[in-house]
């Protein structure tokens, strides 16, 4: 009767199996450092332009949106604070991670997916390497390390975008006050959650991408399916995890 629950439960179980296996390979040699730095370059450096763009515009649009509400309360001087807090706590981590899920999660899934359907994964196992160690671990390590850094970049560029909108364009406040209120509003709590989130999201993006890539079947069509699934599933889990983490931090 509960047969319809079997596939999702199976998927969940398989996913955590992969997560567990990856965790166990973390301390184990070989570490394939070349693969890690290659992945960091592709995932991290490769994502910088789009992160700059999105960070800048989301900061600017936020300052614009808030300008009216703040003016109603005569609190336009607080614009720096509002922009900084929303960016560091929410928009920076979530937007950056969603972008990276689209760019990197899909890339991981399609790369591993084509390797799977052309039997490169089988060949790897047959020729003495563990695909989890050789493929999953470097991607996980690289994403977990670079996504928080990308988020910091997005946060900062977003604040610059907010500044350019608030001060030169709208003249809501002075430059000194904008940066002062932005800087002073941020507490350790915000920074912690602002960095913990992208770290967790990175794990989701990398593992979900690898998971769907490695279980690809059905030729090139299957690769396309795996790619889409990886992005959709990772995005959903980013939102769910974001809510849970926020809930914990709000209570702190």
């Amino acid at each position, binding site marked *: 009767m509960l047969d319809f629950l079997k596939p999702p439960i199976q998927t969940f179980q398989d996913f955590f199996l992969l997560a567990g296996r990856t965790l166990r390979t973390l301390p184990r040699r070989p570490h394939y450092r070349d693969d890690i730095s290659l992945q960091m370059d592709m995932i991290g450096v490769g994502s910088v332009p789009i992160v700059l763009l999105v960070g800048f515009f989301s900061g600017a649009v936020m300052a614009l949106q808030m300008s009216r509400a703040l003016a109603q309360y005569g609190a336009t001087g607080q614009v720096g604070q509002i922009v900084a807090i929303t960016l560091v706590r929410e928009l920076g981590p979530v937007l950056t991670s969603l972008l990276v899920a689209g760019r990197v999660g899909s890339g991981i899934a399609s790369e591993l997916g084509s390797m799977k359907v052309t039997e490169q994964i089988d060949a790897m196992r047959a020729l003495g390497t*563990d695909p989890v160690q050789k493929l999953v671990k470097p991607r996980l390590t690289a994403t977990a390390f670079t996504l928080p850094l990308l988020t910091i970049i997005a946060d900062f560029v977003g604040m610059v975008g907010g500044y350019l909108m608030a001060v030169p364009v709208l003249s809501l406040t002075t430059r000194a006050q904008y940066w002062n209120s932005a800087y002073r509003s941020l507490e350790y709590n915000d920074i912690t959650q602002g960095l913990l989130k992208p770290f967790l999201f990175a794990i989701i993006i990398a593992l979900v991408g690898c998971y769907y890539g490695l279980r690809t079947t059905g030729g090139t069509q299957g690769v396309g399916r795996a790619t889409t699934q990886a992005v959709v599933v990772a995005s959903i889990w980013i939102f769910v995890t974001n809510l849970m983490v926020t809930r914990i931090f709000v209570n702190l």
Partner: protein
Amino acid sequence: MAEGSDNTVLRFEDVSVVFDDVLALDKVSFVLERGESRVVLGTAGSGKTTLLKTAVGLIRPDSGRVELLGHDISKMEERELYELRSRVGILFQEVGLFDSLTVEENVAYPLRNQQARKAVDSDLREQVVEALRFVELEHTLDKFPSELSGGMRRRVGIARAVVTAPDVVLYDSPTAGLDPITAYTIMGLLIKERDIRNAATVMVTHRYQDGQLLANFRYNPQAGEIEPASRNGSRADLRTKFMVLQEGRLVFEGVQEELEASTDPYVSKFVRR
């Protein structure tokens, strides 16, 4: 490695493999001896690839027992399997060359990564070149797989499979999708590899001609090419057995004469051409 005191290279005992609701292998049993050749025939989806992958533990049997080179691998951990797999060469149906690596790196891959061997770099290059010379592709060292034709990729795949001088070589549909001339070249390489090193050979195919070549031809080292082995007194003939898979079941096992005499409609379809 003294466990394999008898001559058994590979033993399947009632092996079944299930994918979702497909029975890919259904209680398959057979034994492969040292120096023997085996041709596995079957239509697409009959379980040929599954059989080869199960033989080296890339797929785990749902029931039954698989013994490879004297070890029961059905319950072995993946990490223990690496050692054993280093004594087996495999050519995959899709070849599975790493497309981010050059031909040289591909062929060197098993030498570098199999824990059993700690190859020195200078020997390594020599071994790689020798393996590539075997398949007459020593001039492609620095090319990437994407720059090669389908037939050349298969040949690089063969070089990678045999560079470690394995005890057993498994070939998955080595001629699938190739023109007859290239297919003949590939078959020539399989026969040469088998006859020079006397490795046990399992070849999966849907083409009976391939099986016929493997069973009735031998490599002539003087002429440097394959030739028909004379029927009596030749080493090849009776050492090649045929197996036929139908929807995961092993429906025939025997020598060529028995195969040709079979009255089973599915089995005889492979012989009639």
